[in-house]
């Protein structure tokens, strides 16, 4: 790779709220929260019933501590159950869904009912503005040309970013139906300076370019890669940055929020700033539900202060995070950080033979092996023992004689880093599934085997 990583401009999208004192920020959050609760109580049968049952009305919340102590946690199945009372949105909606200007829903691939949401024009402008906050912090400016590698369907994905980039004033190239080769061609032809996609797909695009004889770091102009949609280990970030000669900024959102709630700024503090002007983000112990201090891993509870149509209060996201104080970053924002972004999913976390395991730990190791193109993790029960099976697919260019030494080296490295002895299997080139959005590289076969 021949280009040094591009420098990106620095700045705040909203200087005032991004740098306000923490006490002022807490007061702003409380003011918005109380307005949100009053709106929900008035407009949504679901939320009214919930507040009344818990004996906590909008006027009872006098502080953020009150809220955390008294307001019940919301689970995903409670949303889908409420929506099922009168599909698509049931008793959840806080305004007449006829005021919606767009609808999105989760894929429902896990077999559960999808979460369905709509946005009013007010909500959708807010969603785009959250993306603006993140993109601007990464260095995206009106002079940029951005390629968004995303399917533009029912899944919300990068929809908000499309509108945000237009709002910032970028030229946006929506490549919904394009394959990877065409996207590489467009990146070069259009001299794109920003790329938005999942981390997995950024690596796929880099590999495709390599196979086409294109060195994206040398021949391309990308300075910012906006990565979203999956946990993104540090090794993956570095690999993307090297392949594109660009800064790779992490961000994450969810359908339930309709937009992003965190972003990595150009100072790269090793994590992502939480957009605390528009969200209340709590981190709680998954077992005790007690608040986690800075530096302790827990599950994030999300409260959106942004939307009026579909509202979320203390939503159990299943995302594992570690909060750090804002002062750990030199950018001047007063918004706290999630160190390392999303660490993984609580429902993907397993204890294997006494050792805690998350699939992202394997990805960390995989990305240090350039000979490995794709991988899958399986948890299986062998001889009454839980065993981690990792399937690795070598890159096409690797000679077959090198497969077995690769397998052995990789197994040893996983054992060294994870303190687990995996069974590593080789997969034929092209055998393992590829992903554009939401890579799924972990399957718990012990649970699947237990299903009726």
């Amino acid at each position, binding site marked *: 790779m021949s280009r040094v990583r591009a420098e990106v401009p*620095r*700045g*705040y*999208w*909203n*200087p*005032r*709220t991004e*740098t*306000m004192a923490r006490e002022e920020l807490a007061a*702003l959050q409380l*003011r*918005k929260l109380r*307005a*949100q609760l009053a*709106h929900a109580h*008035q*407009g949504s049968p679901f939320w009214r019933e919930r507040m009344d049952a818990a004996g906590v009305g909008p006027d009872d919340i006098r502080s953020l501590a009150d809220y955390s102590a008294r307001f019940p946690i919301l689970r995903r199945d409670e949303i889908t159950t409420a929506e099922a009372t009168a599909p698509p949105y049931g008793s959840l909606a*806080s*305004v*007449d869904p006829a*005021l919606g200007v767009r609808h999105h829903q989760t894929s429902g691939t896990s077999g559960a009912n999808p979460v369905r949401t709509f946005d*009013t*024009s*007010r909500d*959708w*402008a*807010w969603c*785009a*503005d959250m993306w603006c*906050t993140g993109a601007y912090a990464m260095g995206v400016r009106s002079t940029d040309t951005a390629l968004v590698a995303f399917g533009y369907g029912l899944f919300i994905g990068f929809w908000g970013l499309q509108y945000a980039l237009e*709002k910032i004033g970028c030229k946006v190239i929506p490549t919904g139906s394009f394959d990877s080769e065409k996207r590489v061609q467009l990146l070069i032809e259009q001299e794109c300076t920003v790329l938005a996609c999942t981390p997995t797909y950024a690596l796929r695009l880099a590999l495709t370019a390599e196979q086409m004889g294109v060195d994206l770091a040398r021949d391309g102009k990308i300075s910012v890669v906006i990565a979203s949609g999956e946990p993104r280990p540090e090794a993956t970030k570095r690999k993307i940055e090297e392949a594109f000669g660009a800064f790779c900024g992490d961000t994450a959102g969810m359908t339930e929020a309709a937009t992003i709630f965190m972003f990595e700024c150009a*100072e790269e503090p090793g994590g992502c700033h939480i957009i605390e*002007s*528009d969200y209340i983000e709590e981190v709680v112990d998954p077992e005790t539900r007690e608040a986690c201090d800075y530096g302790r891993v827990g599950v994030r509870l999300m409260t959106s202060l942004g939307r*009026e*149509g579909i509202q979320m209060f203390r939503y159990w996201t299943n995302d594992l995070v570690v909060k750090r104080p804002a002062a750990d970053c*030199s*950018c*001047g*924002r007063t918004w706290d950080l999630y160190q390392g972004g999303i660490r993984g999913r609580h429902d993907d976390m397993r204890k294997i033979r006494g050792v805690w395991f998350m699939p992202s730990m394997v990805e960390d190791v995989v990305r240090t092996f350039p000979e490995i193109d794709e991988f899958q993790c399986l948890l299986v029960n062998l001889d009454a023992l839980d065993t981690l099976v990792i399937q690795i697919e070598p890159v096409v260019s690797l000679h077959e004689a090198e497969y077995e030494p690769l397998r052995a080296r990789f197994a040893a490295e996983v054992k060294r880093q994870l303190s687990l002895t995996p069974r590593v299997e080789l997969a034929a080139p092209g055998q393992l599934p590829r992903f554009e959005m939401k890579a799924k590289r972990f399957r718990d076969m012990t649970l699947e085997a237990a299903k009726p």
Partner: protein
Amino acid sequence: MTGYAKPELSKSEQERLRRVYDDLQQLAASEVPAVAAAARAALAQVHTALNGEGLAYELYSKNWK
């Protein structure tokens, strides 16, 4: 480094922003479809500016027909 330049809205810019918002709120109720639609779209954008500056925050669409 401890932060970047922090441009601020002047008092008169803040007042203008609020005035534009109030005007658009009224126009959003216009009976002329094109005017109401344009005002509602613009209102949503102006609201994000007020929200981003911490100047105003409203969940307003429920009042619309």
